């Protein structure tokens, strides 16, 4: 694997081979279990059926090559092969379903067939879901979804791979799937470098005070001379996103509590006004803000971006938190007030602990927004307070495009978001619709 250059293989051949094996090995066991056999036999038979269809797909693709040449459109041959191989696997599965004999052993079905008690339904509560036809369709659905999810993730995986490629591998044509992993991209991202001539390289190689990063760069004839701007930008992102999140969630929590529990005059209008600011294109808001910041000396400062992000997230956090607080029964606080708590104590000891999941979800959403934000940062900062999103594209502009470094930069930037997406999965819908719609 290492050191051998393999170009991008025929992607669809691999993809559909896996796809048909998956379909076969999930759909066939349903039939086998239904007829009283061990499902493992079904998995083996199904995988074999799938592999057969996969091979059929490959052969078809090769056989249809003349057609593709004729139409000058290889896509047609792929589509035909997909349809034909799908027909093949469905026919094979139907054949299996028809001709696999009922188990002769002493399985529950056999007992039932011999006039004994009914075979127990062990794998579903709803009667229509016991039907093998329904189960096969469900297996097919699951396979399709899994393969689509795989397809969706390819760009992200590709970026993660590019981050570990060396410069020639990253810009190879055709693109490489298998390559020598290296940390060159990451080191390039984090450092400033200068080129060395051959005498200097020899001199550097003789030195023994080099760390691993120096050695990696030395391989491509460069010496590290300092930290790159990216580190600074990432730190700015962290400071600005963190501070604005804390501010907007704490202010939003207070406002949401007030809107939820007290009668505020003009409440509907206020809430609409709060939300509508979020709907505007950022550029619309930025023109006057830009002028205002220039007058106040807030242009290209952390404080300026923090204030803007706080204001923008505030609308969102008020709406989201109001939804969460509305769900806490008023009676809890009323009981506490009767017991002699003051309003503030009730808020702190009763409402806040109850709303803690909501607060956590809101915090994360606000953080992601501020972390991902690009337009404001692009227009209101130049250097001192510039965050990572406007910085990453600007790395393209300077001479040779270091795709590996850009991919590494993007990867570091995206990892927190991916982790958070998993943590938040139950609240995603609520977050993106301002708390209006809950996930079922």
């Amino acid at each position: 694997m290492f050191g051998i250059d393999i170009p991008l293989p025929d992607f669809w051949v691999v993809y559909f081979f896996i796809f048909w094996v998956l379909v076969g090995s999930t759909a066939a066991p349903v039939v086998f279990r239904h007829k009283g056999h061990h499902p493992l036999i079904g998995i083996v038979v199904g995988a074999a059926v799938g592999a057969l269809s996969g091979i059929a797909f490959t052969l078809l693709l090769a056989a249809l090559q003349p057609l593709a040449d004729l139409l000058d459109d290889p896509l047609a041959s792929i589509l035909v092969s997909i349809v034909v191989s799908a027909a093949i696997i469905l026919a094979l599965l139907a054949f299996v379903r028809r001709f696999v004999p009922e188990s002769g052993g002493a399985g529950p079905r056999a007992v039932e067939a011999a006039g004994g008690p009914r075979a127990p339904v062990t794998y579903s509560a709803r009667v229509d879901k016991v039907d093998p036809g329904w189960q096969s369709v469900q297996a097919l659905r699951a396979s399709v979804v899994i393969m689509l999810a795989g397809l969706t993730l390819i760009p992200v995986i590709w970026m993660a791979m590019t981050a570990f490629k060396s410069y020639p591998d990253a810009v190879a044509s055709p693109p490489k799937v298998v390559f020598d992993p290296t940390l060159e991209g990451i080191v390039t991202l984090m450092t400033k470098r200068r080129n060395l001539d051959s005498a200097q390289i020899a001199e550097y190689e003789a030195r023994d005070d080099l760390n691993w990063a120096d050695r990696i760069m030395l391989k491509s004839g460069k010496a590290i001379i300092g930290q790159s701007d990216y580190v600074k930008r990432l730190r700015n992102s962290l400071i600005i996103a963190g501070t604005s999140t804390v501010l907007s969630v704490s202010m939003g929590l207070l406002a949401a509590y007030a809107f939820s529990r007290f009668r505020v005059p003009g409440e509907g209008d206020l809430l609409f006004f709060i939300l509508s600011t979020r709907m505007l294109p950022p550029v619309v808001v930025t023109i006057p803000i830009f002028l205002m910041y220039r007058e106040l000396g807030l242009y290209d400062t952390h404080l300026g971006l923090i204030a803007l992000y706080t204001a923008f997230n505030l609308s969102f956090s008020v709406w989201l938190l109001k939804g969460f607080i509305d769900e806490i029964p008023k009676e809890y606080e009323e009981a506490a007030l009767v017991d002699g708590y003051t309003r503030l104590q009730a808020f702190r000891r009763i409402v806040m602990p109850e709303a803690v999941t909501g607060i956590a979800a809101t915090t994360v959403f606000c953080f992601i927004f501020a972390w991902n934000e690009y337009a404001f940062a692009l227009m209101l900062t130049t250097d001192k307070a510039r965050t990572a999103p406007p910085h990453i594209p600007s790395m393209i502009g300077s001479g040779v495009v270091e795709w590996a470094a850009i991919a590494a930069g993007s990867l570091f930037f995206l990892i927190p978001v991916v982790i958070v997406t998993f943590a938040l999965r139950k609240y995603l819908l609520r977050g993106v619709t301002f708390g209006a719609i809950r996930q079922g």
Partner: protein
Amino acid sequence: MSQANAQALSPQSAAAAPPRQRRQTSDRAIAWLFITPTIVLLVVMNIFPLFYSLYLSFNDYSVIGSEPPKWVALDNYEKILTSERQRYWHNFTVTGRYALLSVGLQLILGFGLAMLLREKFRGSGLITTLILIPMMLSPVVVGLFWKLIFDPSKGFFNYLIYTNPRGGAEWLSDPTLGLWSIVIVDVWMWSPFVMLLCLSGLSAIPDYLYEAAAIDRASAWFQFRRITLPQVMPLLLIAVLFRTIEAFKAFDVVMGLTGGGPGDTTETVAVRLYSEAFLGKFRTGESSALAYIVLIIIIAISNLYIRALNRAREG
């Protein structure tokens, strides 16, 4: 007697006023205390700038120029709506085409995915979350790495849609494909959002509707058309409105991917606004007027959107 009792129960409220009335007044104080910081910040950061840019939209002004704003009344609006209409109209048609194509495809794909994921299977939660990842990523970074993917020689996109790449398509530098590449990225990012909305709608449909239909021997197609579709409709409407508003905001992905090019074929309204206001001549007055026109359109759409949201929440 009752006074003494109340004091015994709550030692903190030693004040002379009856506890009930005291609590009410302090409630109002707390309400204002809690809301004021939010309102103040929003007025300073949102309302003031909006009025300021309304003022600017009636002026001839450039932030890099040395002259102060000069009152020209409706000249800026007149320029956009009449004399230079064609240039601006182009940006609106680009935005419209982009919105129509991407929202249409997202609805089909998102709804299809939701139908597939409707019945849970082992691991469906994990798969759903994996599909949702693109939605949460930074749009500009997404635009950037798709730029590499679309590259005709270094990217893999052409290799995926053509088994043997001869003369692959130049996605980002072809005038017609440029918009399509943005649509593809947008669909990749936001179909999961539509899927999520549809899933929540589908899971809310009561089973008895299907059972009643099955007893009446309704076909699967009939059940889909008369039960599933109408029940999910409000959520699809929300998806359409939300994505349309987002289309007017489309800036990050376009900037990361094409920067409005080739030529001005992918220059959406937001990108145009940016280049008017912050590049070249910094035409602040004119861009403020354009911003106000966009603002009016978006407020109209978001009014509909919020009404749809409220209806979905109540129903």
